[in-house]
């Protein structure tokens, strides 16, 4: 049994109390004295040249303070891209400038043209209506294939084409892969689309800029997953504000899922305008604006091919993808279809040869970047779809085809042909467990029962492996990252023994305020209620990289283990002094330091008090105080893995798909708080099922977003989802971090879409629709019904 509040305990979340009573403090809940409001006038066309902006009438309207245009940002830098990909010719990607306000051209619907600042939001909105923008409309390029054609309209006039880069991985293996395909006994291929998504955290983005002339200090309150990254990017690259004059605060944040990683124009605008106007400037995104200005995600067109020998061993994988970047490069956009996608293309299988080719393309749509999973869902979708298709074409059991090709438990560490070295995993175990909790053995009976009701039942499997805690910094630097990827923790022990943990990670739903103290409580043996977590404010936390990519426990938690270890080392020396014993003879158990083999001991609080009131203290050999910081830079990724099973019923009359059961057996390594981990899986599964069945960002040929509200962009509701069956018992510890933890935030969204699609195809095939080999997501009733009619 884990200790209550320690590692492995399902400790209830302390942050829940404020959220359940209306006492959360989200960015929009903050109102500063004398604040003004900004409303952005955004482009309503996808592509056009700005011939003139007339703000005269608007400026005369009630309450208007100032109207900003691109002229006001001439001395500012563009919004920076944080990852430079090198193409297959060794050349850097094409990197266009991304101005804070549209400069010369508008490049997508929603591109901000003017920032109207007024005393009230209503006045700002009213005034924006009076601005006359003379735009010469240009034909937009929305379709990725059209964007690559010779003579296509260019999104950026100063680039040679709409191709950001063509990436080949591993380029040296290309020929060998092609040869393997030529010699293969079987080749199975699948053309598929990974549908464009919008993360849609329930809290839309908010930014409040403030400037204090007293200490020449800028403050930005923002809905961010990584306030230190925003401080660095905005301060150094956009506004030229040194870090010690810039504070970024991300208070309670209502979900992120990746979309709040990036540095957005509105943040720079509010920070800058607040100084110019000498008053706080607040922007609150409406949901309609969020659809037009938040980074979208996925949007890949891919061809995946699998070569097999006569015994159905996988010989080679070839993947070709067109990846939409949108009109500008969002902060981490170039890394998603490359290093977070190509490196996962071996999956959990021992395929000796893999080649991945990606063309990243500019279009007149809003920027595309990471969203829960980021590249790994796209890789998993390709693999698990083509393997399912192969099983059907070769008439073999999809379970057995996977099992036969799995990397075996005794083959770890396993070097894949796409750069990664998997440290641990047991794919056979998670598959067996999933089949057990899904009651796969009795599937045929359930199919028959559904048939009697007039429903088509099917079962789909998806086995995934993913990579979290992207690192080490020096390696990712070589791959083009313009940031480090360590994490930090400061453990500040107070005189009476309570502890403040300061972290560079950020919690926006993950429950860090509960789980991080569990680690410290466990290591020292004191009650977790004595430990608080401080996060989300660059003024009082160490420089860290924030929360995304399922990295917080694996990387931030490991930093915390290191910092706590330093605390314990020093506390042990203080205890040894107090007990007049040698440090190596001191044992720490349940918050008590004792001399081994004796009954002499001192409590935690006696040691901490001695550190701060050092009357009886070895001052000649040790500084007083008890506060330690650690930076942890992992030497490898972590590799969560697992097996998902989706069971669906399809209504043959309407094509409507109902997910009747979903079973997940995951390997997250060591789990700190099982309750929180299960909740993370539930949420990931819901988003993956949403992608598979209902969600899609749709632009028309004019570049107008057709799915711009919750009425058109349909996320799962409570009655769209089943009870989830979750199991975490097949854990294999991460071998290279001190916790053994792998990360759990994205797995659900990575592994589930192919399970759903495979299940629907299975249901249709079982019912005799043998021509239906693939349906593109989202599997709406119309698409499923149409597929059945052919």
């Amino acid at each position, binding site marked *: 049994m884990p200790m209550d509040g320690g590692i492995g305990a*399902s400790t*209830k*979340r302390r*942050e*829940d*109390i*404020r*959220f*359940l*009573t*209306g*006492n*959360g*403090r*989200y960015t*929009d*809940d903050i*109102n500063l004295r004398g604040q003004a409001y900004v409303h952005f006038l955004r482009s309503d066309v996808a592509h056009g040249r700005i011939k003139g902006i007339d703000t005269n009438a608007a400026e005369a309207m009630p309450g208007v303070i100032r109207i900003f245009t691109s002229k006001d940002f001439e001395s500012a830098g563009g919004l920076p891209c944080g990852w430079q990909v090198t193409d297959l010719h060794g050349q850097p990607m094409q990197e266009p400038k991304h101005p804070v306000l549209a400069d010369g051209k508008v490049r997508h619907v929603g591109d901000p043209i003017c920032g109207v600042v007024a005393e009230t939001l*209503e006045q700002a909105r009213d005034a924006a209506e009076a601005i006359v923008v003379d735009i010469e409309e240009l034909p937009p390029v929305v379709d990725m294939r059209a964007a690559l054609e010779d003579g296509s309209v260019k999104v950026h006039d100063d680039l040679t084409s709409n191709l950001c880069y063509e990436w080949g991985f591993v380029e040296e293996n290309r020929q060998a892969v092609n040869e393997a395909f030529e010699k293969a006994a079987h080749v199975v291929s699948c053309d598929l689309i990974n549908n464009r998504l919008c993360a*849609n*955290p*329930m*809290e*839309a983005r908010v930014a409040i800029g403030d400037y204090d002339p007293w200490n020449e200090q800028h403050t930005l309150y923002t809905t961010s997953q990584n306030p230190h990254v925003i401080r660095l990017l905005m301060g150094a690259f956009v506004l030229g504000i040194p870090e010690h004059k810039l504070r970024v605060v991300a208070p*309670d*944040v*209502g*979900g992120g*899922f990746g979309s709040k990683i990036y540095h957005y124009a509105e943040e720079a605008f509010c920070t800058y305008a607040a100084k110019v106007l000498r008053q706080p400037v607040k922007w609150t995104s*409406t*949901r*309609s604006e969020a659809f037009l200005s938040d980074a979208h995600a996925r949007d890949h067109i891919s061809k995946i091919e699998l070569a097999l020998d006569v015994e159905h061993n996988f010989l080679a994988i070839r993947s070709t993808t067109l990846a939409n970047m949108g009109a500008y490069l969002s902060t981490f956009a170039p890394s998603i279809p490359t290093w977070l996608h190509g490196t996962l293309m071996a999956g959990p299988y021992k395929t000796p040869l893999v080649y991945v080719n990606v063309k990243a393309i500019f279009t007149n749509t809003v920027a595309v970047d990471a969203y829960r999973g980021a590249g790994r869902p796209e890789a998993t979708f390709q693999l698990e779809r083509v393997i399912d298709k192969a099983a059907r074409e070769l008439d073999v059991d999809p379970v057995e085809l996977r099992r036969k090709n799995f990397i075996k438990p005794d083959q770890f560490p396993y070097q894949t042909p796409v750069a990664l070295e998997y440290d641990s995993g047991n794919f056979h175990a998670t598959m067996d467990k999933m089949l057990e909790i899904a009651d796969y053995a009795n599937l045929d009976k359930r199919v028959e029962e559904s048939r009697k009701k007039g429903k088509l039942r099917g079962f789909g499997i998806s086995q995934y492996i993913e990579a979290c805690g992207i690192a080490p910094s020096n390696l990712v630097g070589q791959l083009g990252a313009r940031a480090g990827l360590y994490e930090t923790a400061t453990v500040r022990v107070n005189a009476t023994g309570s502890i403040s943990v300061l972290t560079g990670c950020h919690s*926006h*739903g*993950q*429950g860090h305020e509960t789980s991080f103290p569990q680690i410290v409580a466990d290591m020292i043996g004191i009650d977790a209620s004595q430990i608080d977590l401080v996060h989300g404010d660059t003024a009082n936390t160490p420089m860290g990289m924030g929360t995304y990519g399922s990295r917080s426990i694996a990387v931030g938690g490991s930093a915390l283990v290191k910092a706590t270890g330093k605390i314990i080392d020093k506390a042990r020396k203080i205890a040894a002094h107090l007990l007049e014993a040698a440090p190596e003879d001191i044992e720490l158990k349940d918050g008590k330091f004792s001399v081994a083999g004796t009954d002499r001991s001192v409590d935690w609080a006696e040691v901490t008090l001695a550190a701060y009131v050092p009357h009886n203290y070895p001052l000649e050999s040790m500084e007083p105080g008890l506060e330690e910081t650690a930076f942890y830079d992992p030497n490898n990724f972590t590799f969560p893995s697992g097996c998902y099973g989706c069971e669906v019923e399809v209504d043959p009359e309407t094509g409507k798909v109902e997910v009747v059961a979903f079973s997940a057996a995951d390997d997250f390594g060591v789990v700190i708080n*099982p*309750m*929180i981990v*299960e*909740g993370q899986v*539930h*949420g*990931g*599964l*819901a988003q993956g099922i949403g992608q598979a069945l209902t969600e899609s960002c749709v632009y028309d040929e004019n570049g107008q977003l057709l799915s711009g*509200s*919750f*009425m058109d962009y349909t*996320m*799962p*509701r*409570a*009655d769209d*989802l089943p*009870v*989830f*069956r*979750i199991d975490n018992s097949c854990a294999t510890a991460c071998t290279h971090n001190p916790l053994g933890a792998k990360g759990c935030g994205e797995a*659900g969204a990575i592994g589930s879409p192919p399970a759903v699609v495979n299940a629907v195809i299975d249901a249709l095939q079982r019912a005799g629709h043998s021509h239906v080999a693939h349906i593109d997501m989202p599997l709406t009733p119309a698409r499923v019904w149409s597929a059945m009619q052919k």
Partner: protein
Amino acid sequence: MSRVSMVVNGREVSAEAEGRTLLSAFLREGLGLTGTHIGCDTGQCGACVVHVNGEAVKSCNVLAMDVAGAKVTTIEGVAAPDGTLSTLQQAFQDHHGLQCGFCTPGMVMSAAALLAENPKPTEAEVRHHLEGNICRCTGYHNIVKAVMAASGQAVSSLGVAAE
């Protein structure tokens, strides 16, 4: 602008409002009750649900002036004055029915209205009732569990999480 009065969480309150001021904005900006959240602009997400004269309503779909004189309960008025959580709030914590917390006020207010009229709902009834509240974090699994548990029903059949 004119002065609008109502009883919010048992207290007589009044604040200035325009004809176009929504109840959600009146609560948040006029009264500083920021527990009621705005998650969309089309009446879809339910983060702004409050009770007006005992009925659950989306406060972004109601003009403040239209509910002048009404009894309004927001998430701030649900726990006991000493801070003790209601049975439903406690069930949300016990069963991990919230993550980022943004949809939570609306979820709690919607679920409370359900339990007031249907004290022992089935799982299907809970899911159907919560259709107007979007949660992006939990997949609803633990929300459904929390509501069932708050109604005094066994939830062991709803998965193994956090018993």
